[in-house]
């Protein structure tokens, strides 16, 4: 009943734009998860797509084998990815900086090879994923998830937990001496990042309807990293903007289709040198909104609620 109504609503949107919208939504979910790990906590992960693949295959297989209700399926996919996040994070998060980055990459590649060799993932042939078992149209699911993830990220960044993550990014030794269990917090951040990647992967699998382990390789991880870096590491609005821009650009700029990766590569170098804070780094969105509306921003209380909406320089 409600499903039918929503279905009609979604059908009002042109199919081509709808597809772009959904892709943007999925990209935002992925970017926000990586932003928490890399932007907020400062732990460079080069294997974000691997967690996406876990979500995609978990979701796909659950739909194929069990025909599970999609909402249960979606959460299971996220949890499965988070489980792997903890499993992988536990041993490697002791490593610092570039070693960590390489280890995430290593694990991602190992996982890809394993998925390419399992029967349940249909090896290198990939899986066709049937329609999800839900009356609610997928685009609505995607955007509801986007909103929930954004809300969760805002809450996280404005909490004692989020502060601890930023402390780790800024100075791990000082964070430890302030009583922050850095290993535990890093693992938690990693698990949340993996969880959201799992959500994104599950949504992606059901939207695209076909998944192959090779789709979730290193270049996918770099794609997501690009979105976060472009928007401004650590900035939630930045990640949303970065994901939207980089997903939409190839659709609207024809030349981008062929030269996409070329532009992305150059962009990363360019951004690091000339604008390491990304597009929205150091920009307070609240102040911009206030200015646009012509109101004077409330004087900041000390307990500011959005001091961390601003992207921070990479540490």
């Amino acid at each position, binding site marked *: 009943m409600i499903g039918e109504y929503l279905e009609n609503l979604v059908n009002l949107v042109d199919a081509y734009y709808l597809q772009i919208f959904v892709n943007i939504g999925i990209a935002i979910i992925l970017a926000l998860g990586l932003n928490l790990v890399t932007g907020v906590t400062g732990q460079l992960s080069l294997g974000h797509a691997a967690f996406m693949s876990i979500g995609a295959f978990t979701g796909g297989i659950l739909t194929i084998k069990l025909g599970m209700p999609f909402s249960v399926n979606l959460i299971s996919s996220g949890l499965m990815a988070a489980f792997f996040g903890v499993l992988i994070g536990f041993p490697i998060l002791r490593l610092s900086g570039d070693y960590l980055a390489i280890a995430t990459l290593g694990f991602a590649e190992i996982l890809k090879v394993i998925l390419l060799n399992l029967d349940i993932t249909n090896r290198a042939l990939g899986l066709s994923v049937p329609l999800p078992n839900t009356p609610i149209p997928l685009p609505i699911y995607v955007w509801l998830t986007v909103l929930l993830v954004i809300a*969760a990220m805002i*809450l*996280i960044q*404005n*909490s*004692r*937990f*989020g*502060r*601890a993550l*930023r*402390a780790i990014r*800024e*100075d791990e*030794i*000082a*964070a*430890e*001496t*302030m*009583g*922050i*269990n*850095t290993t535990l917090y890093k693992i*938690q951040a990693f698990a*949340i990042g993996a969880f959201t990647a799992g959500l994104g992967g599950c949504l992606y699998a059901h939207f695209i309807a076909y998944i192959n382990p090779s789709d979730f390789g290193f270049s996918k991880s770099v794609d997501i990293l690009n979105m976060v870096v472009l928007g401004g590491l650590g900035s939630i609005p930045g990640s949303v903007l970065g994901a939207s821009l980089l997903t939409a650009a190839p659709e609207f700029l024809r030349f981008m289709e062929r030269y996409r990766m070329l532009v992305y590569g150059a962009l990363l170098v360019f951004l690091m040198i000339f604008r390491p804070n990304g597009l929205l780094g150091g920009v307070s969105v609240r102040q911009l909104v206030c200015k646009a509306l012509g109101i004077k921003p409330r004087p*900041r209380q*000390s*307990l*500011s609620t959005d*001091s961390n909406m601003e992207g*921070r*320089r990479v*540490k």
Partner: protein
Amino acid sequence: MPLLTMERVSVRFGGLVAVNQLDLEVRQGEILALIGPNGAGKSTVFNLITGIYRPTEGTIRFREEMINDKQPHDIAMRGISRTFQTIHLFNELSVFENVLIGAHTQGKSGLFGALGGFLPAKRREERSLASLARECLELVQLDSKTEELAKNLSYGEQRRLEIARALAVKPSLLLLDEPAAGMNPQEKKELMELIRQIQASGISILMVEHDMKFVMGLSDRIVVLDYGAKIAEGLPEEVRFNPAVIEAYLGKGVSGQC
């Protein structure tokens, strides 16, 4: 009963014995100064107490409990906090947030608390952490700079911010590594006053400092370190004229201003 006891603690880095069979006691409520020439091992002692380095041998006890093998965050939770010789602030965060992070030990909510951040109990916790942070900032007179980024403060302000951050941990033992370094005489005077105030609030202090006037004027007792080993210990006036101490400093070309 002493607050902190180190018994025959040594640490080696490769061939170098940075701390050698050190016995050290910090008593409740006192200001104990740890002095010695450059490279004597003073900062290493701090790193041992705060769990950043592990002793090669010996035991460290805090309130009777062995803390040798505890992680730095565990040790902070037990009530030891510190400042660093080379400033370790959260540079890209605001002054206020730096201190709020110091107040981490005084809060409880973790990941799930964060997701319930809109609940009254959580908001109450945030408010109490914020007011603790504000108190600490007022104490070091940085309450007018709460929104500045830590990296934009002057050197003396950064040193005071480190102290505020360490106080927000609500320690019973505070370690200060060269708190007066790089300060002008006026700032030093204010800092002395501040440290006395901290002591008066019931916090015991272990301090490393090269400025002898500062040390003599402030400390209840002094321990002198040379080549990682203790060469003297006692009241300021005893240590000042101890031949071994004079020898250690003069032999190395007077690095402190005695």
